């Protein structure tokens, strides 16, 4: 993970390596003196600023997948809604998908703008206790493209963490783009002082998805993020007419279950394909409240309920009971 500058020679050991500025490959590099002096290795002061800023945030959870289009944003949004259904909790949802920010649409916040105040940027509130931040709020048109290279994306993520006035937050949920690149490295780097409780990994059942997800799990191990568990999304489709189940995305290599067994990770649950989920997301409404009896909504509730027991706080026990009662009453 060592940083290699643009103008580095071929075998650059990386600016944060012990050999920085000292290896034979460094000869003639314009950065050699900086690296040799150790200045390039100094941690970014933003990490400490962020640590201080986020002392008011109790839990930080990443939602990851190696694969695109598996339902990260859908899950992030609905996890946030479910957590926020407890009025006593403050929930924050941060969207760090800089090129393809889906969260504003899914949360019904398209067209909202971010305001600056003395204490920083104000996030957009979808409920009194549910705050959202996304680059989507900084774009003036739905056609605006964010054509940024890595360093500029990293800068934005730093600002999201350091300059947003989140206030007192019980859960900060971070929605990510697919992959293992700048956004992911930056989130991990900038939260290295503040800490990350863990990551929820989303996949779909087929191997084309799992092969990317295994890489993401390796990434988590490398950067030492605990994996809370894996969710298998789009797991089967029940025809509304004949009620037969089709495996549109077939688990040809055993699906998430076998992968979790092999990697010794918890399978948090499976969520079936339901056209109403996509529709709710498009309309910016929570399908947990739109169609609470649907198998998909029940699957989500069953995932979220034990999920919070695993984070082991007293508040969670009370919250879990709240959700359990909510499910029973439907």
């Amino acid at each position, binding site marked *: *993970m060592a*940083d*290699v500058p643009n103008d580095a020679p071929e075998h650059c050991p990386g600016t944060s390596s012990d050999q920085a500025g000292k290896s034979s490959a460094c000869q003639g590099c314009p950065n050699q003196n900086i690296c040799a002096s150790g200045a390039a290795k100094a941690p970014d002061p933003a990490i400490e600023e962020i640590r201080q800023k986020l002392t008011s945030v109790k839990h930080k959870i990443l939602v990851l997948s*190696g*694969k*695109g*289009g598996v339902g990260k944003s859908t899950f992030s949004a609905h996890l946030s809604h479910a957590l926020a259904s407890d009025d006593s909790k403050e929930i924050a949802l941060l969207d760090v998908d*800089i*090129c*393809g920010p*889906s969260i504003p*649409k899914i949360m019904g916040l398209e067209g909202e703008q971010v305001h600056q105040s003395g204490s920083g940027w104000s996030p957009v509130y979808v409920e009194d206790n549910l705050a959202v931040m996304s680059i989507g709020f900084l774009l003036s048109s*739905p*056609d*605006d*493209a*964010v*054509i*940024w*290279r*890595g*360093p500029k*994306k990293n800068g934005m993520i730093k600002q999201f963490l350091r300059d947003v006035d989140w206030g007192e937050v019980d859960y900060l949920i971070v929605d990510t*783009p*697919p*992959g*293992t*690149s*700048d956004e*992911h*490295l930056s989130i991990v780097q900038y939260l290295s002082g503040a800490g990350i409780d863990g990551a929820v990994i989303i996949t*779909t059942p*087929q*191997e*084309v998805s799992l*092969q*990317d997800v*295994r*890489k*993401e799990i*390796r*990434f988590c191990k490398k950067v030492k993020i605990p994996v809370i568990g894996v969710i298998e999304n789009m797991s089967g*489709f029940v*025809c*509304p*007419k*004949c009620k*037969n189940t*089709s*495996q*549109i*995305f*077939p688990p*040809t*290599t055993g699906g998430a279950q076998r992968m979790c067994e092999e990697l010794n990770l918890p399978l948090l649950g499976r969520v079936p*394909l339901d*056209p109403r989920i*996509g529709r709710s*997301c*498009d309309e910016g409404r929570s399908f947990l409240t739109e169609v609470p009896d649907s198998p998909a909504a029940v699957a989500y509730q069953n995932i979220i309920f034990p999920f919070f027991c695993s984070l082991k706080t007293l508040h969670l026990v009370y919250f879990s009971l709240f959700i359990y009662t909510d499910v029973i009453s439907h």
Partner: protein
Amino acid sequence: ISINGLAQVKHVVLVLSGKGGVGKSTITTELALALVHAGKKVGILDVDLCGPSIPRMLSVGKPEVHQCDAGWVPVYADPQQKLAIMSIGFLLEDSDEAVIWRGPKKTALIGQFVSDVAWGELDILLVDTPPGTSDEHLAVLENLRKHRVDGAVLVTTPQAVSTGDVRREITFCKKTAVKILGIVENMSGFVCPHCSECSNVFSKGGGEELAKLTGSVFLGSVPLDPLLTATLEEGRDFLQAFPESSTYTAISQIVNTVLSSLDA
């Protein structure tokens, strides 16, 4: 020695989407296979460095990439060498290993993939991309500047969350002067194999609406087909296995339209 890997490549087409998981790699694979069946020599350049899907979809497993005088030799999916592929998937010792690279390193490898691969004579090079409008996309275009880019095929699924991202990709194409050959609406309806009821799992019509909204060509809709997903999982040729299917018809139509726009 100046190596210009694309010197004998007639056409270059990018497959783009702002959105992940809509079927870029799937459409790239099926377009490639259809073009090969139509007698063309085709190449696929897979610049999704974090999540390379092409090797598995074409069942090329873990071959070694060799060097020759003209550069890296691409991997051929077939003994007749009609379909050449380059992907980071071929360069990884361990297929589960994560490629945890920041932008500059990704840019450098993509530069090599474009310039240092001995593609040889190709009728068409398809470039499969990751979602977004970032380093990989800029790297591909910068390195292709010496060579013509005929245009891009944009893939979306029908729902607004997807077309919302693809609108931004359209802006990217306009800003970088990449011609939009057209929009494909993938995962457009699911026909139940038991009772033939059609369900719009990911909504319907959004791709066609987007084409109208942005003045782009609508290339066609491809249905959600478990047979397509299953054959891709196994790295088999869907077009040879299921030529009677409506999915085959949809793909053939798209290929014909793309070919006509290239010859025009």
